[in-house]
């Protein structure tokens, strides 16, 4: 068993601490940027949503720390390998399969919501498969290279995202009104708590640490990397929610499917070469979706490879049809969001509730030995 881990993850495939943080940020930011203002306001109904976003981030940080601590108990092993050591062969395999299923569904869901946005704004009338397939091919080309090229691509995409995202959102200052964010805590704390589940689901992403710790050059810094990654995501979400709410108000947000995009589309800055920025935002958002999709795809293939103790390549190709089928299952946009909720619930169970008992069992067993 011990040698096995090294065989699949070749010793050269290590990632640095900043790289880990970058993966966490990229894997966290996704559909949430476009939908979080709506989904959270739907639950909270007051302008205090930004507090909920912070709360969700804190919860995600806690979950992240637990998951990292769990992984640190088993150096150089991914969750697929050490879960069998904690809860036995069958239980571990079942859990691994569930996690693989989660990653498959995530990548299917992300690719489908990308397709929906693309069809809505860019390529009306283009068949869904024609949008999904090239995306998957490009992803496949990247994933075959292993974790290092994936990470390096993430590192290229992130700065582009940060620059363009900040530029575009701050352009909307023109229609920003502080009154839309008032009153603070007008209805007390209860509404804020109502939205916590939704906002913390927007932070699904740190679970990738269950695999990444095994790849890290300095696993001792894993906690730092995770917290840094989630913190960056928190800032992104805060900016999004505050700017969108400030411009569109609570009532305006609830009725829009993609409120962030509508915000960008709702203003024109005259006098610049570009007067409309939705295309720029879409471009960086697509890249973000690409990062989530590739990472989830890779994580699922890695899980199967380690479960069956085989080389990863056949599984990388093998899961493609599964992801494609998952992404084609939803019939309309509502089904897509339902799928998203399902993924969220699964994540809550797998990565919110389960890691703590696992950690306790692992510590207890380790202590006994």
């Amino acid at each position, binding site marked *: 068993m011990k040698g096995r881990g090294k065989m699949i993850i070749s010793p050269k495939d290590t990632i*640095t601490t900043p790289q880990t943080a970058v993966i966490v940020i990229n894997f966290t930011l996704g559909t949430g940027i476009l939908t979080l203002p709506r989904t959270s306001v739907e639950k909270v109904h007051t302008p205090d949503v930004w507090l909920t976003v912070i709360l969700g981030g804190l919860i995600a940080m806690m979950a992240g720390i637990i998951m990292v601590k769990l992984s640190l108990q088993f150096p150089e092993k991914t969750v697929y390998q050490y879960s069998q050591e904690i809860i036995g062969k069958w239980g571990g395999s079942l859990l691994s399969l569930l996690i693989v299923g989660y990653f498959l569904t995530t990548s299917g869901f992300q690719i489908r919501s990308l397709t929906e946005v693309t069809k809505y704004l860019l*390529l009306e009338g283009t068949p869904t498969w024609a949008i999904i397939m090239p995306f998957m091919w490009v992803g496949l080309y990247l994933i075959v290279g292993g974790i290092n090229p994936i990470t390096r691509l993430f590192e290229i995409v992130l700065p582009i995202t940060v620059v363009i995202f900040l530029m575009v959102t701050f352009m909307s200052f023109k229609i920003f009104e502080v009154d839309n964010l008032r009153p603070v805590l007008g209805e007390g704390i209860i509404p804020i708590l109502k939205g916590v589940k939704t906002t913390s689901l927007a932070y699904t992403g740190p679970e990738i640490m269950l695999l990444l710790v095994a790849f890290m050059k300095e696993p001792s810094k894993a906690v730092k990397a995770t917290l840094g990654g989630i913190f960056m995501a928190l800032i992104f979400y805060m900016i999004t929610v505050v700017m969108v709410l400030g411009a569109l108000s609570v009532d305006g947000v609830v009725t829009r499917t993609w409120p962030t995009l509508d915000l960008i589309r709702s203003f024109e800055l005259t006098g610049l070469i570009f007067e*409309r920025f939705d295309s720029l935002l879409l471009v960086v958002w697509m890249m973000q979706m690409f990062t989530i999709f590739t990472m989830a795809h890779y994580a699922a293939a890695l899980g199967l490879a380690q479960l069956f103790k085989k080389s990863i390549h056949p599984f990388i190709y093998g899961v493609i049809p599964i992801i494609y089928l998952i992404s084609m299952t939803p019939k309309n946009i509502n089904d897509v969001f339902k799928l998203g909720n399902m993924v969220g619930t699964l994540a809550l169970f797998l990565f919110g509730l389960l890691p703590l008992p696992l950690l306790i069992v692992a510590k207890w067993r380790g202590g006994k030995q």
Partner: protein
Amino acid sequence: MKMKRWKSKMRKIGNHANENENKQESASQDSTNQFSDEFILNLEVVRKEIGHNSDVHFREFIIGHTGIQASIIFVEGLSDKDLIDKHIMTSLMADFSIEYQQEQPDVKESLSNQFIKNQVLSISDVEEVHSIKELASKVLTGSTALLIDGLSHAFILGTTKLKTRTIEEPVSEALVRGPRVGFTESLSDNTSLLRGNGETENLSLVKFQVGKRSKKDLVVAYINEIVDPELVQEVEKRIKKIDVDNVPESGYVEQLIEDNYLSPFPQVQNTERPDRVMAALMEGRVAILLDGTPFALIAPVTFSMMLQSPEDYYERWIPGTFIRFLRYIAVVLALFTPAVYIAFISFHPGMIPTKLAISIIGTKSGVPFPALIEALFMEIAIEILREAGLRLPKPIGPAMGIVGGLIIGEAAVQAGIVSPILVIVVALTAISSFSIPQYSVGITLRILRFAAMLCAAILGLYGVVLFFLFMMSHLVKLKSFGVPYMSPAVPYRLSEWKDLMVRMPLMMMKRRPKMMHTKDPLRKG
């Protein structure tokens, strides 16, 4: 059965006969390959070996007043005739008799080769050879052979005179500020240019021979105290693997040692500038110089190196940074402008700012073609123009470019085949792609631009994004001699970003690039 036996018998006989022939041949070869004591015979054998070449000259003469026959053999044009006349012929024919008569009264017996070598031939490069094959190959590369009656070997005298051109400013890499020195076709000139460029003690020049039939010298240069020994080993390993019969230019070497031949991106840098090579060596890279070409190779390279010019460092850091920024913008423009044009015009006209959209659509209304065809037409036209301008004689080339570009552009707009805004787009991409200092990267970008245009024509802006992701995926996977092609941009190395998009002041760049694993990480000074 019978047939078979008969055949095998015949074969046996045949083999026998062959063996006999072989034996005879090898025996005769042995006898011809060695010198005999007979001067006339020797000369005859040499004549047989190379005498059929019209440019090989045999000059027979008598040494001084001794009556000893001798002959020199040399190739017209390859050997330095001045040298032969002054230091071989004169000393053997004229000077010889005087000195000799004074010291050695008895002529014939003491004509030792030591005497000839040490006292007569006033030439630095003298060598004895014992086989005729060796003599032939030396003579054919420019040496002069000296055969003397009574000696069972020959002297090879280094009289090679290569025709080289003078050192000129490199044509393909012009600079406003910087040394006006470029490599030439002569390897020895090029290595001496490197030696003369400063650091002479630690500069290692290791010689190899490449090419099976036409052997050429190749020199691997690196600085011993800096370079990573593993890199040198890897480069030498790849060079030793080269197995072709002729290597006419360093482009052959480049293509035979590169990491990924399917990639459109060059993974080895070529340059005509000694200063550029020296700067690369100082960063811990390895240079490869080939005889017969002014283009040296530098490995490993990164994408950012391709966008740098030595001038970035010669100018002060603020202009250096500014120009570097311009180049990065130029890369983006050269790659994506026509693609974005096609995407917006044919897929998302709603995303263009309203006023701009109105003016574009106004000018494009008469154009009968879809945006892709229109853009392809103009892009291909300008590529042909560029190629034509390159091949034409120097005085006509630029004129042709200007006239052709202006006339075609203007006429196409007048005729309503293309919209004026497209002409601007095409001109912009052309200028941008020419502003990239490395010619080979400019070509790569021009090719990829067509791929981007096709993607845009199929899937609009989404296609362009996919193309970008695909290209980036390729770039992050690509390596040049083990160094990731996109480093130091990714993985993040903040300390090396001082010399990436910006060029920070020289005193801030105290370290050599980490990715080169240099023995000595600090630049001195």
